[in-house]
């Protein structure tokens, strides 16, 4: 059972102020309508994880960690590895977050991020089988939101993608139907870098990467993940408003072009780490800006 809480009077006031600015193609923080906030990606902070990334998108801050285990495959997919994505908005992330099991927002967050990665076929799950029908790699991506200031979808997605790109997993040899763990580690089999782009509709404007303040005024939200070929892989509309068909057409075009920019930034962020993965010096990977 899900309930949407709203404080309508505050919403109406904010909407007025924001709409005045939006009519002038301006935003409260000075950004253009189609600009992301500053994106910072630090990888490798968590040595006990197979991969990790700390992402700041403006004041939104999330941390993702990848843990790779050996597990049994699903009976109907004996030769496919497992990918499991969980998200939680930690109670320290905002005055409104509370301890407890994930609520519908956190569940949607995890499932939308999962969908972008799964549908783009970012990871070749069929290369993660170890012993057919018996043993496969299970890739757990756990993301925690440390500071919530809007657009958790993109920040979370970038963190998981960056953590997956830099993850190193133990190599196994199969000997007499049993697995022997080797000292060597290998990267995950990556096909593409999917990029999530989230937009909000406020009045007649479509804005990219909404802040928490903007989200409080938006009618609707849409998240689109695209792959390196510019294909749309996953969409999720949210919020209690609507989009016209024309808006949805424009949004897809924007998602591809903005996605291409962000993809370059993600690739740059993970490049040094991927060549330099065993470097234990993490003074540069500071949680503090």
């Amino acid at each position, binding site marked *: *059972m*899900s*309930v*949407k809480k*709203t404080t*309508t009077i505050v919403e109406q006031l904010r909407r007025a102020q924001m709409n005045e600015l939006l009519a002038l193609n301006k935003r409260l923080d000075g950004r253009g309508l189609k600009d992301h906030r500053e994106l910072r990606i630090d990888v490798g902070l968590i040595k006990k994880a197979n991969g990790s990334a700390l992402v700041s998108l403006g004041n939104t801050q999330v941390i993702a960690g990848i843990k790779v285990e050996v597990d049994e495959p699903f009976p109907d997919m004996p030769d496919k590895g497992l990918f499991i994505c969980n998200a939680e908005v930690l109670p320290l992330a905002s005055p409104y977050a509370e301890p407890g099991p994930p609520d*519908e*927002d956190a*569940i*949607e967050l*995890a*499932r939308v991020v999962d*969908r972008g990665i799964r*549908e*783009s076929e970012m990871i070749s799950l069929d290369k993660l089988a170890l012993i057919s029908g018996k043993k496969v790699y299970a890739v757990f991506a756990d993301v925690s939101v440390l500071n919530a200031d809007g657009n958790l979808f993109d920040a979370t997605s970038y963190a998981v993608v960056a953590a997956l790109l830099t993850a190193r997993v133990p190599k196994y040899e199969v000997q007499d139907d049993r697995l022997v763990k080797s000292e060597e580690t290998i990267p995950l089999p990556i096909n593409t870098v999917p990029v999530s782009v989230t937009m909000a509709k406020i009045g007649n404007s479509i804005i990219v990467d909404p802040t928490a303040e903007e989200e409080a005024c938006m009618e609707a939200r*849409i998240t689109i993940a695209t*792959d390196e070929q*510019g*294909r*749309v*892989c*996953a*969409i*999720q*509309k*949210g*919020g*209690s*408003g*609507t*989009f*016209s*068909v024309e808006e*949805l*057409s424009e949004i*897809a*075009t924007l998602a*591809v072009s903005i996605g291409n920019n962000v993809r370059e930034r993600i690739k740059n962020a993970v490049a040094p780490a991927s060549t330099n993965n065993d470097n234990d010096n993490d003074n540069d990977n500071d949680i503090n800006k």
Partner: protein
Amino acid sequence: MSRLMSEEGIRIDGRRWNELRPVRIEVGVLKNADGSSYIEFGKNKIVVAVYGPKEVHPKHMALPDKSILRCRYHMLPFSVEERKNPAPSRREIEISKITREALEPALILEDYPRTVIDVFIEVLQSDGGSRCAGITAASVALADAGINMRDLVAACAAGKVGGRIVLDINDEEDKMGEADMPVAYLPNLKQVSLLQLDGKLTADEYRECLNLAINGCMKVYNMQREALMKKYFSTKDEEGGSVED
């Protein structure tokens, strides 16, 4: 050519690319509910009940200026191939949320301040597209409950199967196909209130798929209207001027 689509463009269940599965909608199937409906959409069989507008408990949760809409999408244990645990899964929780968001723009919640409206969607048997069928039936049940609405909400998916954009994906096409895109549409307001996508589409295919889905929604909309007309206008004795309950 995939086994999902013959060379003549015939799909695995005999339909053409732009054809819906058989649909049947009944209105007012449950005695206790304020509004209810039953839908068969392909092999989907879904009952929906609406309770409300009614008092909110605890009272401090009420909104001063409008009604709260709550939705629950739930599958019975025997509705799927493998018996499902009756506790709500993460998938059911997500669908409950997007269902609420798909229905909310059609409702004039401001007419019922300090109340709550409950929509319960129970999937007796599930096929591909159960979330769309649930939204379609819920919209009818809300109308049956007499809730003030700006529009109905009609929902239908389109997708890519065997390389072609087709309407209304069934279970097998969902599992083996390339993309599935559920859409909910407000036909008179010409607005999309639900859009999801699983699977890869080029930007052009995306637009084609969206338009085809909306096309399907318009067909579903006509069936919703028919079902409501059948209940409310075939016999004149059920509609009066007074508000009962």
